[in-house]
């Protein structure tokens, strides 16, 4: 399950941003999935951030996240067979990391056993 989810999230970054993520890790607690994406910042954002354009870099990241996050949300729902009721996500450009908390309801009773992370 982790490898399918990781590949799909990597594909989103690759297809939409032509950017390769360094690492993706997960933790599942009850009906909460936590995802950490390392190396999520693109070269363009890093360049802006390093050249006194950090505010612009933040605006770019906010726009990117608005596009990317719903896609990640859909992928989680599809792979885990769940309905996400809340998706909380944030990125820090300096540390090149994105974290997300997905709170969901299971669509089927046995999904937890099938897809334990």
């Amino acid at each position, binding site marked *: 399950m982790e490898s399918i989810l990781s590949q799909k999230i990597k594909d989103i970054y690759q297809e939409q941003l032509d950017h390769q993520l360094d690492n*993706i*890790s997960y933790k599942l607690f009850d009906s909460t999935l936590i995802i950490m994406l390392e190396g999520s910042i693109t070269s363009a954002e890093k360049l802006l951030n390093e050249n006194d354009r950090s505010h612009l870099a933040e605006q770019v990241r906010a726009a990117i996240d608005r596009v990317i996050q719903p896609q990640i949300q859909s992928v989680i729902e599809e792979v885990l067979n769940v309905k996400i009721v809340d998706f909380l996500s944030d990125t820090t450009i300096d540390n090149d990391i994105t*974290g997300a908390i997905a709170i969901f309801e299971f669509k089927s009773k046995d999904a937890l056993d099938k897809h334990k992370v």
Partner: protein
Amino acid sequence: MTDNLLTRGQLERKISQDIQSLYRNHLGHQPSKVSCQFFDTKLAIIVEDSITNAEQILVEEGKNDLAEKVRSSLDNAMQPELKRVIEGNAEVKVIDILSDATLDTGRTGIIAVLSEIPKVRNPESIPKAKV
């Protein structure tokens, strides 16, 4: 030495209580529930009913953009205190704090990235993240 340490659950509950107090003292608003969960060198925090009445009024008046700006500014303003609460209790350094809130559900999610796994009586109970 180990006997003086809190268990993972005790430490998570203590941080949850302190965060509830933090909201009450700084925003005059008490969240209905704060839950904390350590995993690896991270601490995930979920704050239920984190949105103040003032922000709810803005949302009801259709001023969602302003409500989101207020929320984002409040979260930023509270981060140093939040960091102090985590560092003070867990006795580790907080390297990064990722935070987001949904006005509709009133929920705030926070992930604190720590310098190391906190010292607890039962460190084996802190789960590892799957890669």
